[in-house]
């Protein structure tokens, strides 16, 4: 079946470095994508979203890139801080509807001092 998946389950970066978290999706009908951050014991926290009519969207210290040709989504975090340590999920709307989100498996980001 169609699914959202992540390339890497874990990622360790040095504090101050940039982080790149990747996500592959297979539902070509999806037109809305979100990155969520989940800290231990907490609910998913919205980071940034992007619609399929865009290739790039920037927020505060974060950038999401969408490559529809290869169905790839990435989250870039600039100057990674210890507070960025968490599990990051990409999510896409669908299948079948804009109202439900299909989450990927998650990437554990660890920021090293």
């Amino acid at each position, binding site marked *: 079946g169609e699914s959202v998946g992540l390339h890497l389950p874990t990622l360790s970066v040095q504090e101050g470095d940039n982080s790149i978290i990747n996500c592959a999706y297979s539902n070509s009908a999806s037109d*809305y994508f*979100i990155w*969520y951050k989940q800290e231990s014991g*907490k*609910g*998913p*926290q*919205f980071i940034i*979203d992007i619609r399929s009519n865009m290739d790039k969207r920037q927020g505060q210290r974060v950038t999401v890139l969408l490559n529809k040709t290869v169905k790839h989504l990435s989250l870039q975090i600039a100057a990674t801080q210890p507070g960025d340590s968490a599990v990051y*999920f990409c*999510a896409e*709307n669908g299948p*079948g*509807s*804009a*109202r*439900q*989100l*299909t*989450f*990927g*498996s*998650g990437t554990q980001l660890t920021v090293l001092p």
Partner: protein
Amino acid sequence: EPEVTQTPSHQVTQMGQEVILRCVPISNHLYFYWYRQILGQKVEFLVSFYNNEISEKSEIFDDQFSVERPDGSNFTLKIRSTKLEDSAMYFCASSVSGGSEAFFGQGTRLTVV
């Protein structure tokens, strides 16, 4: 900042018992959702609710599950006869529209023993 609130934070119940998980969505949001996350796994969609009725549900949301908006602020998930495999974090979420970002609550950890 408005937030989705869930109660209780942790619920322990015996197998076969009924549980009701409660949520207060963000006040001006019109779409409400329940998701669950089994320990160490991805977040899974259960059900979406709009205009006082279920708009979508997943295969997980079988006859043992029901949702209700008993008044203008609460949104509940009922599991009629809990099973061991229902043990998970249950997240409530809400959004302004069906295709916009969903805000998640902190979750209720349900433990079925």
